């Protein structure tokens, strides 16, 4: 059964490998996936360690529902101290790795120390080995996976880093398959720093389902519902690129590094153009949506692209060439670097170039002009291999700004040292609050109340957001308002944490549609598949506990209220384009401060954003680190 999957501690410095069962009391407190990873991260690291040193840990996990009769339970989570921000490092990817690791007998791997030479870790039916990986070093993510499949068998699933991870690019990603990327937080660099090129898994240890008939029936019912929604139908045809139609039309995309909020003449990069290059869609393990295309551009096969690719190689850098989007998407997958961070860093560099803060002398003659497709693709390579100005940009916003100097930092759009999604939150206080307070930095996947943009009626907002915990305040349908938004952000934090505990894809929960899975569904899936009796309220409480552990980690590392904010441009520079309702918008400083106050109060944190002793006691966190595992 799912509850008997183990945890393994792999010490690369000593070669020791220890496996342990995960006690039921730990499961009830943290369930698994991201939540248990955060518990392990808090318990197995010391304050102030070097994120790229041997004292950091790299934790890889599957959610508790991975490989069960809960569809779309394909997500792999990774945690470590982030080399980009110094805060919580957390990243999540789809594909097939987590189910394979589960069938191999494990839900959590805690990788410690540092190998002397390049290695890969082989997880196979209850056994774990550290093997020589020197023949893999230098290979792209795709070649690494192919080499290991040749060596170990076609059925093997591989999680690996590319050249960017080896070169310690601080936002290097971790890849599984063609495009399933754990991009945020730079955890590819953490694996690179430990000389771990890859983790390969193969398993045949079945997961016993507690109530198989009921689990099948319930999964069928939920997936029938999901696949019948407009959201799933559009996602299945265009993937997340369909979002661009709405956000760019409205004026919600960060264009040319925040100088505008809409790319004019964006027709060439609209999602419909994928039909000219695609030969079908493909999904992750057990998914009914199938949100990514298989495409060929310039004779190269890849998968995607997503909304972030349109942003990174489209509106952010002022390009409106669909082939640049496709090729840029391929290169970041190939080299293993976070598409979101690299798009933001390139756009920032272009604005610095435009303003004369960096010149041809700094760029080696590379013309970093808006819309220069060739320069964009070349810069991806230079960053991944740390060549030329790429070596500076590979350091991420804060370190790169320190090296460039002048007033370069004021043009960078980041929170806690991590760049933002290619979106513009000035018209939407709820979205702005979400990125400002994200534990891993500027983040749309940890708290974004995206449905706030849909102008939903208040009765529907009450139905969604008052379950399983009731909010006493008022909601408003207008996404430009400030009222009720702190609660919506908090609710989404709990929703996304809950879905990450069980390893199900966010596109199946209340994220881009109000109509999808919530806490009730997770409670039932847990019951039918594992036998765990947890009410929706219990699931919420676990999510809250795990979110507070993330917060505790950050506080231990010196983060606090001063870091829960936006760069000045959000407050000072009005939006220039878009529909009338979003033009001329900024975030109001005083109202933003009020939202932060309410957000802290709702969480049970003090005015500095520190969980109060009462909150820690209520959540059973008053004795952390408790070293139960």
């Amino acid at each position, binding site marked *: 059964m799912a509850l008997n999957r183990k945890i393994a501690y792999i010490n690369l410095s000593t070669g020791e490998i220890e496996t342990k069962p995960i006690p039921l009391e730990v499961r009830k407190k943290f369930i698994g996936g991201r939540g248990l990873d955060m518990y392990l991260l808090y318990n197995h690291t010391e304050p102030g360690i070097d994120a790229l040193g041997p004292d950091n840990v790299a934790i890889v996990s599957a959610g508790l529902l991975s490989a069960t009769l809960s569809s779309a339970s394909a997500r792999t989570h990774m945690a470590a101290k982030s080399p980009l921000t110094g805060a919580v490092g957390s990243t999540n990817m789809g594909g097939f790795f987590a189910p394979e690791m589960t069938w191999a007998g494990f839900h959590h791997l805690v990788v410690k120390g540092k190998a002397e030479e390049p290695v890969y870790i082989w997880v196979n039916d209850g056994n774990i080995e550290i093997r020589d990986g020197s023949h893999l070093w230098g290979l792209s993510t795709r070649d690494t996976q192919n080499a290991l499949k040749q060596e170990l068998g076609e059925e093997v699933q591989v999680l690996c880093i590319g050249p960017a991870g080896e070169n310690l690019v601080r936002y290097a990603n971790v890849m599984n398959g063609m495009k399933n990327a754990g991009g945020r937080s730079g955890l590819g660099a953490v694996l690179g720093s430990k000389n771990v090129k890859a983790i390969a898994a193969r398993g045949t240890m079945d997961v016993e389902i507690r109530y198989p*008939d009921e689990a*099948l*029936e*319930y999964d*069928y*019912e939920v997936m*029938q519902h999901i696949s*019948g929604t*407009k959201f799933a*139908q*559009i996602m299945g*045809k*265009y993937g997340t690129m*369909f979002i661009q*139609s*709405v956000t*760019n*039309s*409205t004026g919600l995309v960060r264009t040319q590094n925040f100088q505008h909020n809409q790319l*004019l*003449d*964006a*027709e060439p990069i*609209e999602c*419909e153009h994928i039909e000219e290059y695609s030969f079908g869609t493909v999904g992750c393990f057990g998914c009914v949506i199938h949100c990514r295309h298989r495409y060929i551009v310039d004779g190269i096969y890849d998968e995607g692209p997503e909304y972030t690719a349109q942003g990174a190689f489209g509106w952010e850098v002022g390009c409106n060439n669909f082939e640049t989007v496709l090729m840029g998407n391929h290169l970041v997958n190939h080299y293993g670097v976070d598409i979101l961070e690299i798009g933001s860093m390139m756009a920032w560099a272009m604005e610095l170039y435009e303003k004369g803060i960096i010149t041809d002398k700094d760029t080696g003659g590379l013309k970093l002009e808006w819309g220069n497709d060739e320069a964009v693709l070349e810069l991806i390579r230079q960053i991944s291999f740390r060549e030329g100005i790429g070596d500076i940009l590979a350091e991420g916003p804060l370190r790169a700004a320190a090296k460039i100097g002048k007033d370069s930092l004021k043009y960078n759009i980041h929170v806690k040292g991590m760049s933002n999604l290619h979106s513009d939150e000035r018209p939407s206080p709820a979205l702005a609050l979400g990125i400002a307070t994200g534990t891993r930095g500027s983040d749309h996947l940890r708290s974004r109340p995206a449905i706030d943009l*849909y*102008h939903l009626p208040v009765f529907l907002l009450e139905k969604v957001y008052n379950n399983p915990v009731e909010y006493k305040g008022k909601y408003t349908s207008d996404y430009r308002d400030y009222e009720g938004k702190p609660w919506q952000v908090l609710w989404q934090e709990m929703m996304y944490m809950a879905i990450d505990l069980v390893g199900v894809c966010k596109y199946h929960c209340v994220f881009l549609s109000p109509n999808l899975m919530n806490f009730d569904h997770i409670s039932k899936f847990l019951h039918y598949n594992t036998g765990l009796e947890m009410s929706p309220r219990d699931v919420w409480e676990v999510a809250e506990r795990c979110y507070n552990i993330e917060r505790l980690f950050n506080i231990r590392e010196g983060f606090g209220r001063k870091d829960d904010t936006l760069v000045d441009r959000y407050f000072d520079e009005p939006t220039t*384009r878009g*529909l*009338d*309702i979003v033009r001329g918008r900024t975030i109001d400083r005083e109202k933003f401060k009020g939202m932060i106050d309410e957000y802290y109060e709702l969480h049970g944190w003090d005015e500095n954003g520190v969980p109060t002793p009462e909150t820690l006691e209520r959540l059973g966190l008053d004795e952390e680190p408790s070293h139960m595992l």
Partner: protein
Amino acid sequence: MAKKTAKTKGSEKADSRIGQVRCLNCFERYRVPPKAEKFTCPSCGWEWRVSWVNPKLAKIRGPMWDRIRF
């Protein structure tokens, strides 16, 4: 096993929205004529380009760029 797709009142209501789009400017819902490539919102007058996910499901593709320059 699960009940097959017996239509409920709720799903009929959902079906009635198939083919409708929501104007991004005024948020009103309107049905787009089949195969239409352009659509003017009757409520606010904003003009949109339309694409079709399938023959019954319309989607706003983007604004009429030549009308919104500023």
